[in-house]
């Protein structure tokens, strides 16, 4: 066998396997990036890689043991060594707690029409995707320098083609483009700072000059500086900040941990809080692999088992899932194993997140600012970390622009704050939810860039102390 096509590598690996069951995943990734600081390029690069993951399953009377071996750069002649290494681990291993039958082709997800089929070659990206952008960026950097601004930022595009084959006959593929641009503008003396970012699948329509103009306006806002003390403030969170907080909530919504009694979604005395109200507003937190513009893998791809993933679930179709439905906790992220323990539906995690109100008159952020008597308007949140899983208390910082809104207008820039807030507690204190728009989570965008989120107004957002950072 000499073909290096991932489809052929998978068939070859499955034909070599002698274990009870086998799952093979081939990922082909290409990426290109540019980074700049102080109006000049800093680093850049292109990279290609491919990874073969063989999951060998040894079924025995006591259950099923799993061996997972994942290697990059595997060539056809090296496939057998990967299969044998995985089989050896499975044969020597103890039984896995999440053992289930493998997904059958009939229950697996179907590849929709119009998408690349199993036999089509993997797609790729390269520096060419960024060539037009780099030219515009060069002009924008010169304009910013002339306007007394320093620009910092990052642009990245990557494309991963994932091929999944199993010994039960499942053959699935997914091609995932991801991209983002982040732009940070500072005044020449670095005392004022503003940020904008957006996710993109292809860099078409990314207007870096427009991003810079928006930041220039915010730097103007910041010319009047207001010092405010720590305290609880009425606060407008822009969509990126809402996205960061709710992404963390989503990541903390594993059914297994909830069942174990160790998360904010655990019910005292046992069980989970599914079915309980978490907000008085008609808000819905949802994932949908087919959401226009946020398309992501429509089937389970699990390279390893973990608290919220199971290699046995590979190929399972992902359906649109409401995690919070009109203010009520509706589902937790599940494997088939945890669903069996919890008695709840099988709702595996999905790679995007939307949060929307069913109120058709939900306002845009400028309207919300106009209706604010006195409050804070944030740009984004940063360095978000869990403090206490019991309440899902998170801490972090405001960053790159906190603005004071008085009588419906921005009147100046405020110092930064350290916050201590729980996104769960925040849901119960939402005063207003605006219209949802595509949003790049600033903090988690490296891992999770597909989100549609609203600006929200929160009563008494807990600004725990002042940060001197500017």
């Amino acid at each position, binding site marked *: 066998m000499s073909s290096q096509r991932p489809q052929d590598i998978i068939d070859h690996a499955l034909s070599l396997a002698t274990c009870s069951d086998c799952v093979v995943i081939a990922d082909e990734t290409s990426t290109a990036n540019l980074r700049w600081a102080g109006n000049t*390029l800093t*680093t850049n690069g292109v990279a290609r890689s491919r990874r073969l993951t063989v999951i060998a399953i040894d079924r025995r009377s006591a259950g099923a043991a799993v061996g997972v071996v994942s290697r990059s750069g595997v060539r056809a002649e090296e496939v057998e060594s990967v299969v044998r290494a995985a089989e050896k681990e499975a044969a020597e291993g103890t039984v896995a707690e999440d053992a289930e039958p493998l997904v059958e082709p009939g229950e697996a997800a179907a590849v929709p029409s119009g998408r690349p089929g199993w036999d089509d070659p993997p797609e790729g990206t390269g520096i060419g995707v960024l060539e037009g952008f780099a030219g515009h960026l060069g002009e924008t950097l010169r304009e910013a320098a002339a306007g007394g601004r320093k620009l910092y930022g990052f642009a990245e595009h990557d494309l991963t083609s994932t091929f999944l084959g199993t010994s039960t006959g499942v053959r699935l593929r997914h091609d995932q483009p991801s991209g983002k641009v982040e732009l940070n503008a500072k005044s020449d003396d670095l005392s004022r700072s503003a940020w904008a970012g957006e996710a993109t699948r292809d860099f078409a329509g990314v207007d870096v000059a427009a991003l810079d103009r928006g930041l220039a306006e915010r730097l103007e806002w910041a010319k009047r500086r207001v010092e405010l003390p720590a305290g609880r403030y009425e606060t407008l969170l822009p969509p990126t900040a809402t996205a960061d907080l709710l992404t963390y909530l989503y990541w903390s919504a594993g059914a297994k941990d909830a069942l174990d009694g160790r998360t904010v979604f655990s019910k005292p*005395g046992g069980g989970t809080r599914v079915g309980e109200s978490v907000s008085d507003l008609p808000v819905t937190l949802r994932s949908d692999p087919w959401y226009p513009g946020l398309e992501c893998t429509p089937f389970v791809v699990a390279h390893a088992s973990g608290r919220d993933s199971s290699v046995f679930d590979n190929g399972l179709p992902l359906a649109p899932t409401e995690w919070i439905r009109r203010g009520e906790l509706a589902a937790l992220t599940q494997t088939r194993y945890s669903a069996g323990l919890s008695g709840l539906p099988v709702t595996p995690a999905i790679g995007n997140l939307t949060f929307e109100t069913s109120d058709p008159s939900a306002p845009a952020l400028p309207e919300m600012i106009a209706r604010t008597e006195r409050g804070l308007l944030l740009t984004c949140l940063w*360095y978000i970390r869990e403090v206490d899983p019991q309440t899902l208390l998170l801490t972090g910082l405001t960053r790159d622009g906190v603005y004071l809104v008085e009588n419906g207008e921005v009147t100046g820039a405020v110092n930064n704050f350290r916050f201590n807030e729980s996104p769960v507690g925040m849901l119960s204190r939402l005063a207003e939810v605006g219209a949802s728009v595509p949003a790049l989570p600033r903090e988690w965008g490296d891992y999770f860039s597909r989100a549609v989120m609203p600006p929200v107004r929160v009563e008494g957002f807990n600004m725990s102390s002042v940060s001197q950072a500017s």
Partner: protein
Amino acid sequence: MTHGGQHDIDPQFTALPLRALADAAMQQAADLGAGHADFRAEQLRSQTIGLSDGNLETLFDASDVGLAVRVVVDGTWGFAATVDLTPDAAAQAAREAVQVARVAAAMNTERIELAPEPAHGDVTWVSAYDVDPFDVSAADKAALLADWSKRLLARDGVDHVDAHLTQVRECKFYADGATTATQQRVRLHPTLTAVAVQKDGRFETMRTLAPPVGRGYEYLDGSGWDFQAELEEIPELLAEKLAAPSVRPGRYDLVIDPSNLWLTIHESIGHATELDRALGYEAAYAGTSFATPDKLGQLQYGSGHMHVTGDRTAVHGLATVGYDDEGVAGQSWDLITDGVLSGYQLDRRMAALRGLGRSNGCAFADSPGHMPLQRMANVSLQPAEGGPSTSELIAGVEDGIFIAGDKSWSIDMQRYNFQFTGQRFYKITGGRLAGQLRDVAYQATTTDFWNAMEAIGGPQTYVLGGAFNCGKGQPGQVAPVSHGTPAVLMRGIRILNTAEEAA
């Protein structure tokens, strides 16, 4: 020249045509007009084992190989990487790196220069360890973790136990025409966490304090840490924490154990003394630093007896290397001397940019697919010669808190304002420990905190802590790093009650 540990480098790695790949890449880069070119090939072996309540949850065995070519063309960087280890692919990567440099030139206004480094010739270095963890079967490791988990689960009040073991063997080959370095490092991090859940829904956790280390599998057999003693005491410590009173917020004197303070050093000193951050190169992502170069030799970072070093040489240190990813030999130097900012962490570009002479060897890339950045050295607070023991430090506190183990952490983008929690907190009353407290977090501004350091423990309190997962850069890279520290006594630090913060 060979130094470091006594092991040979993995023969699978040295069997690769490393020199032929380097020659193909360097020749191609030179032919296309690159003023500088360097070549790196890597093989990273890693294995993660996870158990939930003694049952195997995760077993993931990975091997990453690849090569990278970095060039400077007409003063602009170019970088390209591939996983194909053939001379043709290496030459192709060199062509791509040159093409990237030409595309990027449109936005470059700063000519890239690199600080000179002596040629080291053809050198080999291996870290210090006894047993390569990849020579032990996964089944044996899982069995050991299952045994430890079940011992904890058998004790009263322990409802759940998580056990994890992460292991890495990193092989690197670097060539730039002056230095050719072949190196191998081994590291591992075992953790066990016990969980107790009350009927009313309240829960607490208690994790082992054993730090990640640049050691081999002998670490789990008691070389460098007493796991048996730690497993023995965890259930009682957990039960006491669950029953402990909630802290009253306010200002307290703190005695901080190395198992907690290493992370505070990492965030408030380690990242703040990276020159690329201080100059703004991380401004849009990881952030900058309050400790800017104009304050070098001036800034009173901490109290007068504070001495902090950077090094890439500490035995068993996670940032310890023979040569960095730019061919610079491992060194040790001062960052804070007598409490005053006295140095930075550098790579060759940053050293040249500020005219600081030779790089102190902090370039690191976490994979063959990433361009090296200035990454953290082992940054350590030096103990006081003849200094006090931990109990002597505690004896100096009338009403305070003793903190051990790290947990939650967060610091702002200029490294001023931080907040940390821990694994356990003890009330100190009249110079003695008086039972645990819960819901404790400490919050401070970096220079206020370090200037409130009244006493530094002696060498008998010194422990090398650290982390596998220090993040920096875009695209994101993770780096392992160690931080040594003694126990310390801080006066008048703000304590928050985390339950009240969430209310």
